[in-house]
């Protein structure tokens, strides 16, 4: 077992642990933080796959920006983290059914990926990730790149239209 394998197992464990913790915790802010743990672990997995640029983007966008969005959304909504209000859902039957479904899903995935052939291992590892991406993006995929800016513009204006009240009513508040 090489160091890369150990790193993979640790990171995979961290990713799954973060996801399970997110489902288990009761405080919404703690949930977001455990989600950040999953995001960072996945960034580590990208590094192991030698996709460095994607890893940095994962840290920048997901554990940075998306988390901020979620924290803001939490601040904007009314919520009670009281344990009293928590309700357990489902009896023994539901839980058994859920366990069966999880087991069946796991077995199906295992059966599916056990003999799956991903083709030859990727050729030489691209040493300069960002450079390769840049060369493709700004010479071959020019139009999609410009459309991305239109998409971002639409997202920006759409968000403003939805969240900002127009006209006189907005001034009075």
């Amino acid at each position, binding site marked *: 077992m090489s160091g890369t394998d150990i790193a993979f197992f640790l990171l995979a464990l961290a990713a799954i642990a973060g996801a399970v913790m997110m489902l288990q915790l009761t405080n919404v802010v703690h949930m977001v933080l455990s989600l950040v743990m999953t995001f960072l672990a996945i960034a580590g997995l990208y590094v192991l796959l030698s996709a460095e640029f994607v890893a940095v983007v994962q840290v920048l966008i997901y554990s940075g*920006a998306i988390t901020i969005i979620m924290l803001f959304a939490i601040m904007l909504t009314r919520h009670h983290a009281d344990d009293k209000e928590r309700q357990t859902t489902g009896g023994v039957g539901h839980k058994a059914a859920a366990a069966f479904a999880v087991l069946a899903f796991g077995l199906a995935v295992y059966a599916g990926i056990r003999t799956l052939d991903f083709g030859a291992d990727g050729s030489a590892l691209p040493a300069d990730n960002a450079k390769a991406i840049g060369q493709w993006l700004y010479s071959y995929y020019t139009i999609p790149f410009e459309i991305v800016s239109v998409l971002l513009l639409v997202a920006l204006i759409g968000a403003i239209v939805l969240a900002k009240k127009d006209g006189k009513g907005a001034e009075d508040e």
Partner: protein
Amino acid sequence: MSNIYANSYAIVFVFLCLGVLLPVGALTLGRWLRPHVPSEAKETTYESGNNPFHDSRIQFQVRYYLFALLFVIFDVETVFFYPWAVVYDQLGLFAFVEMVLFITLLALGLIYAWKKKVLRWM
């Protein structure tokens, strides 16, 4: 090749460990050194001399959400800048024009937000 790659990330891992251990170590050391005499007055939240009242987490205005959204959108823009800057030497003017178009469109969005008074902190 793959060995060099993995080994160079070993240093990143060492830095990660240092970054985690430093605050943990410093705070633990502080806990050992300082006296620990809690009283009710000490445990109240410090709010610049005012007495704290009700829950610290209140419901915020929706308009603050726009700051978060603006941040995300310009964060995504940054992601596109990085590979552009790396290959700028090779692609030259064409890449420059591309990026100017990209920035112009996003600047339109920013001007729209400005005109709509989204940027005003109320």
